[in-house]
């Protein structure tokens, strides 16, 4: 065992880590569980099956799903282009990918709202040409979540594409595969698990996202009100129990979905022979 190795500081470093983790993360998070004990099952079901609460769950999860799918599609293309091709300004674009990570969400929120509001630069264009209004609709939430999702997808797919062995492609093509076959049978199955990870990260972040969404969403109950906003609203009405019930439900659903995606990923990897 390494505890008996000559490395110093096992007890103090582990001790500090566990105490600090407990104080900053575990004890505060446990309040969610303990607070929910104040509710009996009947009250809990009453809070969660409230029409406005159910609508907000539908809005949050559906917009996060659609945004993560769109971001995965375009993010994959972006990662592919950045890894495989060379073009002018590539390094600049490469650095810009992390901008949504670095930009505070409130700033992203007011910027996107300004662009997509009916009098805004793109908002006006979209209404005039296609008759589509983005702001104050679920579509606006999707737009904000796509912005947030981009780096998650690109940054998980990129390293896998970069390390992909080109000799597999060479072998396939020397055996007579067409370019399309090489892509669909060799490259894509190898990158797919990473793409799934990126999708899952983007989806999880999208469900909980608050700052970048609330400005563009318009927060109309039953239409464009997201779960995090409803939690804030409950808190502002001093309904801590209601806020806790919704928060705990959202956390549990998110964890279950992430678990399912992990299982799916394992299955994909097994099937493509990566495990």
């Amino acid at each position, binding site marked *: 065992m390494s505890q008996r190795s000559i490395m110093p500081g096992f007890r103090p470093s582990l001790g500090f880590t566990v105490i600090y983790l407990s104080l900053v993360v575990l004890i505060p998070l446990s*309040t969610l569980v303990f607070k929910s004990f104040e509710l009996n099952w009947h009250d809990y079901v009453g809070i969660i099956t409230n029409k406005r609460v159910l609508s907000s769950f539908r809005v949050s999860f559906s917009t996060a799903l659609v945004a993560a799918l769109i971001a995965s599609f375009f993010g994959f293309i972006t990662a592919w282009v950045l890894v495989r091709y060379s073009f002018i300004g590539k390094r600049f674009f490469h650095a810009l*990918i992390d901008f949504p990570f670095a930009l505070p969400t*409130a700033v992203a929120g007011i910027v996107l709202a300004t662009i997509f509001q009916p009098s805004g630069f793109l908002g006006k264009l979209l209404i005039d040409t296609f008759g589509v209004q983005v702001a104050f609709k679920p579509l606006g939430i999707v737009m904000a979540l796509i912005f947030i999702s*981009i780096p998650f997808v690109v940054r998980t797919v990129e390293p896998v594409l970069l390390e992909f062995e080109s000799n597999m492609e060479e072998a396939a*093509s020397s055996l*007579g595969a067409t370019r399309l076959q090489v892509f669909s049978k060799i490259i894509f199955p190898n990158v797919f698990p990473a793409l799934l990870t990126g999708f899952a990260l983007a989806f999880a972040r999208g469900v909980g996202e608050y700052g970048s969404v609330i400005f563009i969403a318009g927060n109309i109950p039953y239409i464009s009100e997201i779960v995090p906003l409803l939690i804030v609203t409950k808190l502002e009405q001093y309904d801590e129990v209601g806020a806790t019930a919704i928060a705990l439900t959202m956390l549990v659903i998110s964890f279950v979905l992430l678990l399912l995606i992990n299982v799916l990923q394992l299955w994909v990897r097994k099937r493509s022979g990566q495990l």
Partner: protein
Amino acid sequence: MNAIPQPINPAKLVARQQVALQDADWVRWSLIAIAVSFISLFICLPLGLVIFQAFSKGVVAYWSALSQADTLAAINLTLLTALVTVPLNTVFGVTAAWAITRFDFKGKSLLTTLIDLPFSVSPVISGLIFVLLFGAEGWFGEWLMAHDVKIIFAVPGIILATLFITFPFVARQLIPLMQEMGTQEEEAALSLGAGGWKTFWAVTVPNIKWALLYGVLLCNARAMGEFGAVSVVSGHIRGLTNTLPLHVEVNYNDYNIVGAFASASILAALAVVTLILKSALEWKQGNR
């Protein structure tokens, strides 16, 4: 198709192979066009708009918005928050990485998972849990009230929520790196008689310094920019508990667009500086 294999002209074979290894020009250019338009629409346009909006009423309006007492108070509070949380989480990150990568113990993978936990919790919920602990109705609410200590709707709450949100950043950068490094260099130093601290400063730190800086940079960007969690615990008291991101929201909701974008542009500048430093650090790490 099912005939006996014919000898193939080698030149043809090479040409065929090239076709299967490279994308046709039209494919390449359309993919580049799609990617560039996607990034331009979703990233370049927002970036340009912050700068444009901040200066839309002229540089004078921009300066007057920024030199307001409330804005300055918000900047100070944001700096204070980062100044407290970033060093604490950096010390934690290094310690946790040391414990996890230098020793074997039961529950190590559980500990690693728990460290990442704040990443998968919605910012709003991260704020909520501190209200449940220290709010008027919270576990310590009565005690705090009796002793006249304010945590929620006050600066300590903002710092605690930020501490939670930025908790994993440094640890997460260091753990994979220190795992990969192994312990040989440190063991060599120790067996040659160097003390524990000396080994850490002379052997470990030089090896992890770029990843450490990278983690600190990301931690700092998030600490200064956090909105959701801080918004729940702050109470939005102007000049007292508004951080810069909250100040952006307050101004925006008051239809003070220039003020909102003036504050937003400081945060956007912070994001751009973070990106530049990040690229530089990635370049350094790549050349290590």
